């Protein structure tokens, strides 16, 4: 393969290596090289793409704020307690 100067080949990585980094990938806590390798892998691997999408969905789902709703009357009771405190 003839490569232009400065152009790097994307080194293939395995599914296991991809899974190890999926969380860091979603948090953008990986090197640009690793990102590029993972993206090349996702293009070719439906399983890893499914794991990525599912994990991203889970992160969005639990970060929604509606998952642990504060019980009704919580604020009221809290401030009553505070008022009574010495």
């Amino acid at each position, binding site marked *: 393969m003839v490569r232009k100067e400065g152009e790097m080949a994307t080194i293939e990585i395995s599914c296991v290596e991809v899974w190890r980094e999926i969380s860091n990938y979603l948090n953008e806590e990986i090197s640009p090289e690793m990102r590029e390798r993972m993206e090349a892998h996702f293009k070719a691997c439906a*399983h890893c793409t499914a794991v990525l999408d599912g994990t991203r969905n889970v992160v969005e789902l639990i970060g929604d704020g509606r998952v642990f709703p*504060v019980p009704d009357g919580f604020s009221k009771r809290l401030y009553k307690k505070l008022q009574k405190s010495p």
Partner: protein
Amino acid sequence: MTESQLRNNEAELIKSVCAGEREAFYELVRPYERMIYATAISVVKNPADAEEVAQEAVLKAFSHISAFREEARFSTWLVQITYNEARMKLRKARPHLYESIDHQEPNEEGDLWPKDYADWRPIPSELLEQNETRQAVQDAITSLSPTYREVLVLRDVQNLSIKETSTILGISEPNVKTRLHRARLLLRDRLAPGIDGSWIKGQPYRKARAW
């Protein structure tokens, strides 16, 4: 409000609290009610206990406000107090269990293999309006071991930084990353059967995915 405006605003309120203005403390805590409650429930698991812990934590924060150091964020400080209160409650309620919970170190060596490769479509936000969905997600989170659950709640539910999470839990930053990663994959596997509707009570098994 920018981060520095927020901090200045909070610093002013804290000064007022120290000068004896109780109302200022209400104002200080109000934006973090949800955060305090979610932290508590991630440790003690049930809503009644979580509310009690939240109240105790807020009272403690109020009486110890002079101990607050401005290099920390007020929210982090509050979460840390809540977290400690919640652990204390657990220890009192179940001393025999507490020992094992506290020292339980799940095997963090080796790789975690996803069990499910189902193709998930983006989750519509309306789905969380349904009690069943919220309950399923809550159950999946509370079914995680405390080691994973606590990191997951601080990072992904509360959106605290790696550094803040590491300070609150007293674990290293790489450890926060590893635990978060495993918690997310475990949660994904636990929620995956639900996408066929099987975790919604009374729903027959559906081939069509809920999202």
